[in-house]
């Protein structure tokens, strides 16, 4: 087995692998660069799939299970492609007390997904966070990057409705 696996072939000829390679190079293909490399994959591809994990593991001579363990430990990494739209609900203490669990449950029911999942049509990813730093506005959620405070059920479902309809419109324009 070669000591430094600079020559491990990336999973595809996608240009983005060059950015990933550059990150590993910068860290001398050392295992220490694992988290930084996974960040680069996440940023470049939006998620980490088995192929990319195998590639990173082989390139850094890191055990597969360790790479998988790290990828699932940090909330920042995701193993599945994200939906086109994201709703992040806060489950920090303040938001929790102000009724976010009930809101979340309702959203989960309406869209048939659990927190951390994406709808089958790929429109919506439902995510959770631990305190978004806006406790005064609790309960707080972020809809595609726009923060919404003092959220109630009607407002939340409204916002979600808006996001997903826009998605459908874009879709129909694309299809037309």
């Amino acid at each position, binding site marked *: 087995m070669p000591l430094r696996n600079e020559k491990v072939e990336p999973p595809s000829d996608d240009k983005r692998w060059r950015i990933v390679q550059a990150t590993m190079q910068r860290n001398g293909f050392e295992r220490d660069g694992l988290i930084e490399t996974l960040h680069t994959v996440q940023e470049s591809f939006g998620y980490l799939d088995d192929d990319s994990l195998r590639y990173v593991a082989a390139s850094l001579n890191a055990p597969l299970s360790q790479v*998988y*363990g790290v990828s*699932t430990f940090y909330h920042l990494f995701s193993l599945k492609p994200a939906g086109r739209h994201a709703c992040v609900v806060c489950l920090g203490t303040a938001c929790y007390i102000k009724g976010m669990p009930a809101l979340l449950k309702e959203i989960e029911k309406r869209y048939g997904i659990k927190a951390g999942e994406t709808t089958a049509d790929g429109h919506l990813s439902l995510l959770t966070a631990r305190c978004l730093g806006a406790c005064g506005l609790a309960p707080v959620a972020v809809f595609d990057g726009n923060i919404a405070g003092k959220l109630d059920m009607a407002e939340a479902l409204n916002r979600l409705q808006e996001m997903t309809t826009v998605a459908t419109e874009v879709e129909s324009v694309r299809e037309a």
Partner: protein
Amino acid sequence: MKRPFKTRVKTLTIDGMAVGAREDETILELAQANGIFIPTLCHLEGVHDIGACRLCLVEIKGTSKLLPACMTYAEEGMEVITDSERLLTYRRQVLDLLFSERNHVCAVCVSNGHCELQWLAEKLGISHVGVPYLYPQLAVDASHSFYVLDHNRCILCTRCVRVCDEIEGAHTWDVMGRGVECRVISDLNQPWGTADSCTRCGKCVQVCPTGALFSKGKAVAEMTKKREFLPYLQLMREGRK
């Protein structure tokens, strides 16, 4: 291990008994050498300590914090207490939480009667579990040709992870997720039998303190574990240096 020319000796007391320790000796090692029992679960002689299970917590005069004996080095003048009402309460709580987090149904377990968790519960006088059980739905991975992993009995001590990494050198195991979602995984969270890195040596199975890892074909209470290989391998390695 090569020792410096002169090892400095520390003097301290454990449960009021004056003892001498090398400076690279943990309180756990020192206690064991002096015949004092401290309960442990994640500690495994021959691999690194990680201080995960917190069963070995001890009191040290001068600090209100409880410290894990397996991770704390002996220091000059220390006054260590390994047994007190307070410690017993905490140790029982640790065991309570371990029992409640998975499905430890001893009566039908392959390790019934040979399980370290069960043995400790008996030893520390646990008659019932004081917190509600979580009853998680967990898988049993029987894909390996020789062994089985039953997540229902796993206490996440990571002995399997460390022995496979540090002694066998395969690092088939690791832990995924965090908190109550943590699971022991092989390779890319795939069935153990399909994990290419596994050499089928069985070390992980032998060091697992519970019935989470066992040999195929064992019925209830039939799984006994053989640990002699670890000190043996350690000695052989030292001899080679």
